[in-house]
């Protein structure tokens, strides 16, 4: 830094030398002195306020970093101590503050400004400032204060800042916090791994001081280190390939000394930085010391943060971290040790408990077998002096003896143990020929082993030197091992071998038994530990035999090991050193003569072993107890008891006790018991709790789990006393529980009670079952899933599915498939739904019997809750209603068929109705009938769903499927009324039809059987149908004849134009009655009109009517006037019975003029409706009914019908109503005609009949005749233009008769002319000479014209043919409506014009 700025020293104006103003030799003092102040806003220092000058002096002379900010621009003055903080910003003297600290101005600027404005000082503590003052970027912390500087006038002009370095204190505090944090973890970890994790988590929070750490733990007893935890947790740090290597953890473990690693980056690359900008470069690897006296527990790597140099303080901090960590790990180790010890103690406690429990069993069983027989013998002896047989006595005493031995052996074993435990076992070691001794011992077991069916190999060649053993102890060793081998070996061999090997006598006892699992092997010799074996000859055993063996071998300075493979066998190997050097000298004794006690000591082992074998001595005593007198159940078969015990003596004893009263079977373990019960359930199971394979508790559980055996009562026997054991047994489901030793009386009492209880229970069950079985209805129970779980025998009878097939899961086999019979399916679903919602339900449905035939059942369901379990059950009954169903079906079907046939108006109606009925009866898809009458193709009749082709007409024979055609054709070959059913989908039959042979086929459309009952029904129904058809056919013929006759006498079949008639007979099906009408065309366009009414109704009246009508017609044709006609008719009627009082209206109409001459014989007046809306009655010319005054002249009247008026003649049936005057009916009829005066005449007739009809229909004959004047004009002419004028003339005449005005006439003439011209024109072109028809009809208010030809009109196109287009346009203009309908047969023009009033 040069002094180039300093040109010359300045002097203050007040004469104060610059040396005083900027004192000292510091760099900044020199710079300030040299600074050209006068060129700045601060001015010459001589002008500075005293406070600024003072501040400068303090600043320059202080060793604290200090700054003076001056003036509005806060110009920057500072001392040497501040230089490191300023770093490369130096020199910055007198620069504006915001130029110096640009990057933090947003923070400090406002602070400074606030000091300037408020005059109040600020205080900032421990501000982090990264600094590179020692060759690296370190974290530094500073505390500073901004104080105001006033000028001489008291105005704040600047800020004074003193700064102090707090780095050491701050970091020290932070590290302390880390250590405290670590310390606070003490006592939390339950394991070493957890301790390491806690340390790592703590250090992860302390990344500034320990950016990375790793803990390696030493595996106990080795020098292997395994990584246990890192911080950060997911740090992945591994040595770079080709680098200097991994952390020197092994070295640290070896030396116990920390190692500083300074090439961290070279070894690993970038470690986690802990928040610093650069990753750590240094780390310390530290040992984790163990507890005092112990080795190291591990090694710890702690990286140093880049923010601080790894100085002594840092190292000591990291050392403390390691120590804390070690303390935490050690505490966890200690905790785990303590925990393990506690667990071991608990385990020992558990084993002891088990031991005492077992030992109790071991004691109690023989105790029971001693006490029991002794008690029995005592009773026998003390009783009524009954003499006990010698055999029995011996047998009982043998049992007592055996069990006494067993108890003795047990006590000896326990004593041995307690002696060994107490260290008081005194062995007497004598040199023996181990081969001989061992062979002898093995020999004792030979019979037992061979009896068990095993090979027994003893391979003990003599040894060269004797072995020092205590004979008694050695016996126990060998006998225990042999006994063990026999107990667990079921096939193969037991082998005893002796060899000399490496200065040891080596004895091997090997078997080919079930072996010991690997995890059990280490605990084999543990006291009280009983190996859980899959299978053994006996479950007896105290769990101390092998432990004792080990202790005894140990007393001989020898070892015992075991090797085993599951399923292959076990081999025990004992090694006894030769010589006596390893034995206490005071225990050595000289050779003694052969110990006579040998057999005594061995006997219990052998005896016990023999009792495990299947064919034990128990068979001797089979009959021993049969002489017993007590028999608990008088009468009936003796209850059967199954005894399960692995102890043969116990089995014998129990058998002996129970034999007198019960059938007794015995088995040796729970599994055998389970199988026996499943095969044939006894009345009671008496079972020991502790047994091989399947113990008593599991036996009970297995029995209860199986519904077939759940009810079998079980009495458990156990040696394990105490309430808990009892509860355990009852919990498992045992019915009773008896603790050994028990007295014979107690056992018998319990057995009897249990058996009786069970029998009572069984009785209830049987009663329940018998009741259900006695039901004649099928009975079933279904669970909530619908599975049928119980059925009675009636169910099996009715439905064909018996209890052997239970459970029946849905869909039940007796139900039809939904697709086959949706109706049944739906009914059942609905019934089931009702059960679910209402608790009960029922339906009648068809089911399928197991043999395939269909049955109908009435089913009822009730939902109930199982009283035992609370589960929902559905109980149901099914009643076989097949016969009833078919009876009802037959009756119903017959009745329905009869109704159908009787309602039919014709044979074909009857047939189609019957087919519909058949379809309904069988819910068939369709029913098709073919009527064969000679022709190749028969006539068809069908009944099928409404959606398909409707009956008969549309479907032709060839439209039928070929299969159906074949079936219908084949049926002709069968005799009539013999049903032919197909396999699955339908049936057919033939019958005689009046017109030939009828064959019909019922298509069920689904896989549904057509049962025998169905066939019967079909034959029955078709038989009736055949008869019905013939009956209908006869009626048909009669009716046809009658109708033809009736029509002949009723009236003309062809009416002249302008007339409409109606006839409504009162008596159906007659179509005639006493009323009539007649219209008689006469010469000169005159028409005779008659309406008459004979007295009475029905056929008789019709006969009279027929004669009168004919007579009347004949008279009219003779040109007689109406009065003449009626007068003549008077005479005629007088001659005809029943014709008197007939009323007749007779008129003669001139159709050209409308002039009507008429006479009435007491008939109702005609009604004339005028086109203007008025009506009048034709009441003139009236006289008496026929034949009342014969010969009396009749009057005549004349009325000319106005143009477009309408005449109504009628009989009284139209207008006569009860309780209503006739005039009212006439008025109503008048109104009806009048209202319809503009309707076409046919329409008017329909309207009047409908309007006048009473609600219940006409009760009397009605005849009605309508005529409108003039009658319609109908002209047919050849299509020639010359015809136009005459046609026009005819039309003009007719229009004049219609009394229209001349303009309208002219318009209609032109319109009609145009239509005719068109017709003619087309006729010329397409079919010359064809006929054109013109028809004109007038009503009161309308005129209709129709011109029809047989040609085709072109659509009007004026541009192509202005002439024709003009014609059509004229038509449209002149008429109200013109419709041109071109058709294949010709063109029709309809025109309508309204007639103005």
């Amino acid at each position, binding site marked *: 830094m040069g002094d180039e700025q300093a040109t010359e020293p300045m002097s203050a104006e007040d004469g104060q030398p610059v040396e005083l103003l900027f004192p000292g030799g510091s760099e900044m003092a020199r710079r300030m002195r040299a600074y050209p102040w006068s060129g700045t806003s601060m001015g010459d220092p001589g002008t500075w306020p005293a406070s600024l000058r003072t501040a400068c002096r303090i600043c320059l002379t202080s060793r604290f970093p200090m700054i003076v900010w001056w003036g509005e621009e806060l110009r920057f003055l500072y001392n040497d101590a501040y230089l490191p903080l300023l770093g490369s910003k130096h020199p910055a003297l007198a620069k504006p503050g915001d130029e110096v600290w640009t990057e933090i101005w947003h923070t400090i600027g406002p602070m400074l400004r606030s000091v300037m404005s408020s005059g109040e000082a600020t205080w900032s503590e421990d501000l982090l400032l990264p600094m590179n003052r020692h060759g690296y970027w370190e974290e530094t912390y500073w505390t500073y204060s901004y104080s105001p500087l006033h000028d001489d006038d008291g105005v704040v002009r600047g800020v004074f800042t003193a700064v102090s370095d707090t780095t050491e204190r701050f970091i020290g505090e932070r590290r302390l916090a880390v250590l405290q944090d670590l310390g606070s973890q003490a006592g939390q970890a339950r394991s070493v791994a957890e301790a390491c994790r806690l340390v790592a988590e703590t250090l992860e929070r302390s990344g500034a001081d320990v950016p990375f750490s790793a803990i390696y733990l030493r595996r106990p007893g080795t020098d292997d280190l395994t990584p246990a935890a890192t911080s950060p947790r997911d740090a992945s740090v591994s040595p770079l390939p080709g680098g200097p290597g991994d952390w020197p953890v092994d070295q640290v473990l070896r030396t116990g000394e920390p190692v500083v690693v300074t090439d961290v980056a070279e070894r690993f690359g970038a470690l986690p930085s802990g928040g610093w900008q650069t990753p750590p470069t240094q780390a310390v690897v530290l040992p984790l010391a163990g507890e005092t006296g112990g080795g190291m527990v591990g090694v710890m790597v702690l990286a140093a943060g880049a923010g601080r140099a790894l100085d002594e303080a840092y190292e000591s901090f990291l050392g403390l971290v390691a120590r804390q960590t070690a303390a935490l790990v050690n505490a966890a180790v200690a905790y785990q040790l303590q925990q393990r010890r506690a667990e071991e103690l608990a385990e020992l406690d558990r084993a002891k408990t088990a031991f005492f429990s077992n030992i109790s069993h071991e004691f109690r069983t023989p105790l029971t077998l001693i006490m029991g027989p002794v008690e029995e013998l005592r009773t026998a002896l003390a009783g009524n002096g009954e003499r006990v047989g010698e055999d029995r006595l011996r047998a009982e005493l043998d049992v007592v003896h055996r069990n006494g031995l067993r108890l003795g052996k047990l006590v000896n074993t326990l004593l041995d143990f307690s002696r060994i435990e107490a260290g008081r076992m005194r062995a007497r070691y004598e040199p023996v020929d181990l081969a001989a001794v061992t062979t002898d011992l093995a020999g004792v077991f030979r019979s037992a082993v061979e009896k068990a069916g095993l090979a027994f190999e003893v391979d003990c060649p003599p040894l060269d030197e004797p072995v020092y053993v205590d004979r008694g102890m050695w016996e126990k060793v060998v006998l225990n091992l042999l006994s063990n081998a026999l107990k667990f070996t079921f096939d193969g061999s037991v082998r005893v071998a002796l060899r000399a090997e490496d200065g040891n006598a080596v004895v091997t006892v090997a078997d080919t038994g079930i072996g010991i699992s690997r995890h059990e092997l280490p605990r084999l010799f543990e006291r009280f530990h009983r190996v859980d074996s899959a299978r053994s000859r006996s479950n007896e055993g105290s769990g101390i035999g092998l432990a004792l063996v080990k202790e005894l071998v140990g007393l001989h300075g020898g070892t015992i090991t075991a090797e085993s493979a599951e399923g292959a066998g076990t081999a025990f190997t004992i090694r006894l050193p030769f010589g006596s050097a390893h034995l206490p000298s005071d225990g050595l004794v000289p050779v003694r003569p052969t110990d006579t006690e040998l057999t005594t000591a061995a006997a219990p082992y052998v005896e016990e072993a023999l009792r495990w074998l299947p064919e034990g001595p128990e068979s001797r005593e089979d009959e021993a107890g049969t002489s017993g007198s007590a028999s608990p159940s008088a009468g009936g078969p003796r209850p059967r008891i199954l005894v399960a015990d692995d102890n043969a003596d116990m089995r014998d004893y129990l058998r002996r006790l129970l034999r007198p009263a019960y059938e007794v079977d015995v088995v040796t373990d729970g599994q055998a018991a389970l199988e026996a019960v499943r095969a044939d359930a006894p009345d009671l199971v008496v079972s020991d709790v502790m047994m091989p394979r399947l113990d008593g508790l599991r036996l009970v559980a297995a029995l209860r789990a199986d519904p077939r055996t759940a009810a079998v009562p079980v009495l458990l026997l156990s040696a394990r006393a105490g309430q808990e054991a009892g509860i355990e047994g009852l919990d498992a489901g045992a019915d009773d529980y008896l603790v050994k030793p028990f007295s014979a009386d107690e056992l018998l009492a319990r057995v009897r009670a249990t058996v009786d209880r069970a029998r009572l229970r069984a009785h209830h069950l049987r009663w329940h079952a018998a009741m259900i079985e006695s039901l004649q209805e099928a009975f079933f129970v279904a669970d909530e899933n619908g599975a049928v779980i119980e059925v009675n025998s009636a169910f099996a009878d009715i439905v064909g599915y018996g209890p052997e097939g239970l459970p029946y899961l849905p869909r039940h086999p007796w139900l039809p498939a939904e697709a086959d019979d949706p109706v049944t399916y739906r009914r059942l679903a609905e019934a089931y739904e009702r059960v679910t919602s209402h608790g009960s339900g029922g339906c009648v449905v068809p089911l399928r019997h197991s043999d395939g035939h269909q049955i109908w059942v009435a089913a009822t369901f009730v939902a109930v809750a199982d009283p035992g379990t609370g589960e929902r059950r559905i109980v149901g009954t099914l009643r076989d209603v097949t016969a009833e169903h078919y009876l009802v079906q037959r009756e119903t079907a017959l009745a329905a068929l009869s109704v159908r046939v009787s309602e039919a108006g014709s044979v074909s109606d009857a047939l189609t109705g019957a087919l519909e009925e058949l379809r309904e009866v069988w819910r068939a898809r369709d029913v098709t009938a073919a009527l064969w009458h000679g022709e190749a193709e028969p006539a068809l009749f069908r009944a099928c769903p409404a959606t398909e082709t409707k009956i008969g007409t549309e479907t032709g024979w060839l439209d039928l499927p070929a299969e159906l055609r074949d079936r219908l054709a084949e049926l002709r070959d069968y005799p009539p009324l013999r049903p032919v059913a197909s396999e699955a989908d339908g049936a057919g039959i033939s019958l005689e039809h009046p017109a030939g042979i009828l064959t019909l086929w019922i298509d069920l459309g689904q896989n549904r059987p057509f049962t025998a009952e169905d066939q019967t029904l079909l034959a029955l129904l078709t038989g009736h149908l055949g008869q019905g058809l013939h009956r209908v056919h006869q009626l048909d013929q009669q009716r046809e004849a009658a109708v033809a006759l009736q029509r002949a006498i009723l009236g003309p079949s062809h009416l002249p134009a302008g007339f409409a008639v109606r006839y409504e007979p009162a008596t159906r099906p007659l179509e005639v009655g006493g009323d009539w009408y007649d219209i008689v065309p006469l010469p000169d366009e005159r028409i005779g009109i008659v309406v008459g009414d004979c007295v009475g109704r029905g056929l008789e009246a019709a006969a009279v009517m027929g004669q009168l009508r004919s007579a009347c017609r004949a008279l009219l044709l003779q040109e007689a006037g109406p009065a003449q006609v009626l007068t003549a008719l008077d005479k005629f009627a007088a001659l005809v019975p029943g014709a008197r009082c007939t009323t007749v209206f007779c008129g003669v109409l001139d159709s050209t003029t409308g002039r009507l001459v008429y006479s009435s014989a007491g008939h109702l007046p005609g009604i004339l409706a005028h086109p203007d809306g008025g009506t009048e009655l034709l009441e003139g010319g009236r006289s008496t009914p026929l034949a009342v005054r014969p010969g009396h002249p009749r009057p005549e009247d004349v009325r000319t019908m106005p143009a477009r008026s309408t005449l109504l003649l009628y009989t009284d049936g139209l207008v006569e109503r009860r309780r209503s005057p006739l005039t009212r009916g006439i008025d109503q009829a008048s109104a009806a005609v009048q209202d319809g005066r503009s309707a076409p005449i046919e329409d008017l007739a329909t309207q009047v009949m409908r309007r006048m009809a009473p609600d219940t229909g006409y009760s009397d004959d009605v005849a009605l005749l309508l005529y409108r004047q003039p009658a319609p004009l109908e002209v047919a002419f050849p299509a020639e*233009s*010359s015809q*136009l*004028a*005459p046609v*026009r003339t005819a039309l003009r005449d007719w229009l004049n008769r219609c009394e229209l005005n*001349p*303009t309208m006439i*002219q*318009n209609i*003439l*032109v319109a009609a*002319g*145009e239509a005719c*011209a068109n017709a*003619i*024109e087309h006729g010329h072109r397409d079919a010359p000479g064809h006929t054109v028809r013109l028809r004109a009809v007038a009503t009161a208010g309308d005129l209709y014209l129709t011109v029809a030809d047989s040609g085709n009109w072109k659509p009007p196109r004026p541009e192509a043919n*202005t*002439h*024709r287009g*003009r*014609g059509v*346009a*004229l038509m449209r*203009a*002149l008429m109200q409506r013109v419709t041109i309908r071109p058709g294949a047969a010709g063109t029709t023009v309809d025109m309508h014009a309204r007639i103005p009033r």
Partner: protein
Amino acid sequence: MTTPLTMVPSRRPDGTPVLTVSGEIDMSNAGELDAALSGASVDGHALLVDLSEVEYLDSAGLTVLFAHAPRIELVANDLLAPVLTISGLVQVTTVHGMES
């Protein structure tokens, strides 16, 4: 049988040529009318076609009259009025004798 139709040519005192038509005109005799109209001597006058005695005139007759419209004038009666009006003939030629 042809529709009755008579046509009488004449001339008014002022020299106007007149064709007096009586009867009915339809497609069977429209040709005769056409011929008569074509053959009438008019000497530069408009031909006055007197239809007052015509009882029927349809589109065939109208077509003939339309064809000759530029050189004829008509005398009509009330019966023919609707047809002449509707066809539009009144718009292309002068019609006398109609009330409305």
